[in-house]
C-alpha cells in the first residue's frame, strides 16, 4: 500500500519513524510470531526444514488457513461462526453421500453441497440479523444441529459413522485434480490446498482493503448502528460474510473428501476455535471492526508450524496441549505488544 499523503511536519507529532509506521499494520505481530516459531522449530527439530517437512506443515496450515481467512472476514464484520468447523464435515458428507450413495457424478455432488453450504450460511446470517441475537448463540445452535444431522443422517443412510468409497465415483479423478492433487516442486509433492490457501488469502485481502464491500465489512463490525445510519446495507453485508464462511467451509470440505476419499461424521468438531485463534493471532479483534486477512493466513501458518513442529521435535504427545496453550499465549502476547503501538485508539 503506497500511502500518498505527504508528511507535513506538524509540531504536535513527536517522531514519525519508519518503525512506527511499519508497526501500524495489523499483521506485523503475527509475522514476527511466525518468524519466531519458524526459527525455534528449525533449530529444535531436525526434519522441520526438509522439503518434505515444509510441505507437511504448509499442508496442515492450508486447510486451517482457508477457514481462518474467511472467519477473520466475518470477525472483522463483527460476527462469529461456531458452526464453521462442523460445516467442513457437513459439506464433505453431502458430497460423499450424493456421490457414493445416490451415485451422482462427483462434480454434480460438489455443486449440490455448495448450494447446501451457501444455504446454511444464509440461514445463519438471516437468523442473526432477523432475531438480533448474538451470532455466538445462533451459530452455536446451528453447530449443534449440524453435528446432530451429520451423525443422524450418516447413520441413517450408511449404518455406520463414516461415508467412504469416493474413489470409485464418477468424476472423482477430475474433481480430485482441482481439490486434492499434488504439485511436484524440486522432487517434493506439495498439496494443491496450499495454492487455494494463498489464493483465498490474497483475494480476501484485496477485497477487504480495496473494495467497497471490504469497507462495509470494517464498518459493520466497527459499529453496525453508525454504519446503518450512514447508509451501509448492514444486513446484506453480514449475510454475505456468513455465506463467505460457508463457502470456505465448502472448499475445505471438498479438499478433505477428495483427498481422503472418506469422511467421518464427527469430523470438524472443535476446529471452529482453531479458526478463531488463528484469526486473533493474525490481529483480528474479537469485538470486530479491526483485523486483516493476511494476518489470519499467517496465524494459520503459526498454528500449522507449531502443531507439526511439536511432532518433529518428538515431544511427548501427552503434553501436546500444554505446549500448544503456552505457544498460543506467547504468540498472542508478542503480537499484542506490537499491536498496542499500532492501534492508537482511545481506550
Amino acid at each position, binding site marked *: 500500500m503506497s500511502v500518498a*499523503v505527504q508528511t507535513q511536519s506538524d509540531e504536535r507529532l513527536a517522531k514519525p519513524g519508519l518503525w512506527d509506521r511499519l508497526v501500524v499494520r495489523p499483521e506485523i505481530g503475527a509475522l514476527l510470531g511466525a518468524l519466531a516459531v519458524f526459527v525455534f522449530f528449525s533449530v529444535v527439530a531436525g526434519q522441520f526444514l526438509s522439503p518434505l517437512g515444509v510441505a507437511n506443515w504448509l499442508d496442515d496450515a492450508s486447510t486451517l488457513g482457508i477457514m481462518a481467512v474467511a472467519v477473520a472476514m466475518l470477525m472483522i464484520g463483527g460476527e462469529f461462526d461456531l458452526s464453521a468447523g462442523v460445516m467442513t464435515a457437513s459439506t464433505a458428507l453431502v458430497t460423499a453421500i450424493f456421490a457414493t450413495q445416490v451415485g451422482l457424478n462427483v462434480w454434480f455432488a460438489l455443486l449440490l453441497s455448495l448450494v447446501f453450504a451457501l444455504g446454511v450460511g444464509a440461514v445463519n446470517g438471516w437468523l442473526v440479523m432477523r432475531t438480533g441475537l448474538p451470532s455466538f448463540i445462533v451459530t452455536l445452535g446451528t453447530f449443534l444441529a449440524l453435528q446432530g444431522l451429520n451423525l443422524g443422517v450418516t447413520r441413517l443412510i450408511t449404518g455406520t459413522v463414516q461415508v467412504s468409497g469416493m474413489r470409485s465415483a464418477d468424476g472423482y479423478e477430475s474433481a480430485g485434480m482441482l481439490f486434492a492433487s499434488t504439485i511436484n516442486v524440486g522432487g517434493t509433492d506439495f498439496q494443491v490446498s496450499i495454492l487455494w490457501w494463498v489464493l483465498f488469502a490474497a483475494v480476501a485481502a484485496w477485497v477487504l482493503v*480495496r473494495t*467497497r464491500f471490504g469497507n462495509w465489512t470494517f464498518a459493520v463490525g466497527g459499529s453496525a448502528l453508525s454504519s446503518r445510519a450512514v447508509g451501509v446495507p448492514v444486513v446484506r453485508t453480514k449475510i454475505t460474510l456468513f455465506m463467505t464462511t460457508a463457502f470456505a467451509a465448502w472448499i475445505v470440505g471438498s479438499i478433505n473428501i477428495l483427498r481422503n476419499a472418506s469422511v467421518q461424521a464427527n469430523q470438524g468438531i472443535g476446529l471452529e476455535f482453531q479458526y478463531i485463534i488463528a484469526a486473533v493471532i493474525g490481529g483480528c479483534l474479537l469485538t470486530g471492526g479491526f483485523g486483516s486477512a493476511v494476518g489470519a493466513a499467517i496465524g494459520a501458518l503459526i498454528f500449522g508450524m507449531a502443531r507439526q513442529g511439536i511432532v518433529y521435535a518428538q515431544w511427548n504427545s501427552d503434553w501436546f496441549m500444554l505446549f500448544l496453550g503456552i505457544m498460543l499465549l506467547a504468540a498472542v502476547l508478542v503480537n499484542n505488544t506490537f499491536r498496542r503501538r499500532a492501534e*492508537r*485508539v482511545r481506550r
Partner: protein
Amino acid sequence: MIEVREIGKTYGSVIALADVSTVVNPGEVTCVLGDNGAGKSTLIKILAGVHQHDKGQFLLDGNEVRFSSPREALDSGIATVYQDLAVVPLMSVWRNFYLGSEPTVGWGPLRRLDRRKGRETTKTALAEMGIDLRDVEQPVGTLSGGERQCVAIARAVHFGAKVLILDEPTAALGVKQAGVVLRYVAQARDRGLGVVLITHNPHHAYPVGDRFLLLKRGRSLGSYEKGDITIEELTRQMAGGAELEALEHELRAVQK
C-alpha cells in the same frame, strides 16, 4: 419539500413525540429547539429513516413516504449529522467520510475504491472547515470530540443533495469551528437546500434560522417564522418561559 403532519413516535411505553407538524422548504433553515429530552433527536431520526413514525404523515415532495432505512433517506437526498455522530471509531478518517457512498474506479469484479480521491477530498473538505488533520489515515477514534464532530458535518455537507439535517452540530465545537458550521448552514441554504438545525444555543439558531419549531416534552409549543419572534423571546421560550427569569436573576447575582 419535507412536511410532517401530526407525527408521533413511542418507544415501548415512552411517548417521545406526539402531534408534531412542521415543514422544511428549499432554501430555508428550520430550527428545532427545546429542552433536553423534548424529542428533537427523535423527530430528526424519523426524517433520516433511522426510526419509523407510528402516527401521522411524512410527506416528501408531496408524496407520503416511510423510510425503512437511512439508505433510502440518503438516496432521496437527505443527509444527516447525528447527535451521537455515527462514525466508526476504528476506521480511518477518510473511510468514515466516504462510508456508504464510496467512490470507485474500475469495472465488474475489479471495481475498487478510489483511495486517492477519497483521501484528497476528505483532506480538502476538512481543511475548509478549519480542521487540519495530521493524517486522514488515522482512526477516527483518536480524534478529539470536536474533530470527530467536524468529520460528521463535513460528510453530511458533502453528500447532502436536497435536505441537510444537523442534530446539535455545534455542541462540542470551539467558537471558531461553530462559526464555520453556521456559515456552512447558511451556504447550504443559499444553494437551495432545505436545512433542519437542532441546537440549544439561541445565539446560534437565531442568525441562520427561518422557522423555529419549539418542542417540549414531546409536544409542539408552536412554530414561528423569523419575523414573528425576537431573539429574547426565543430564548425565553426555549428555557421554558417564566422559570428562566428567576434563574437569570440568580445568575446575575452570582456574577457579583
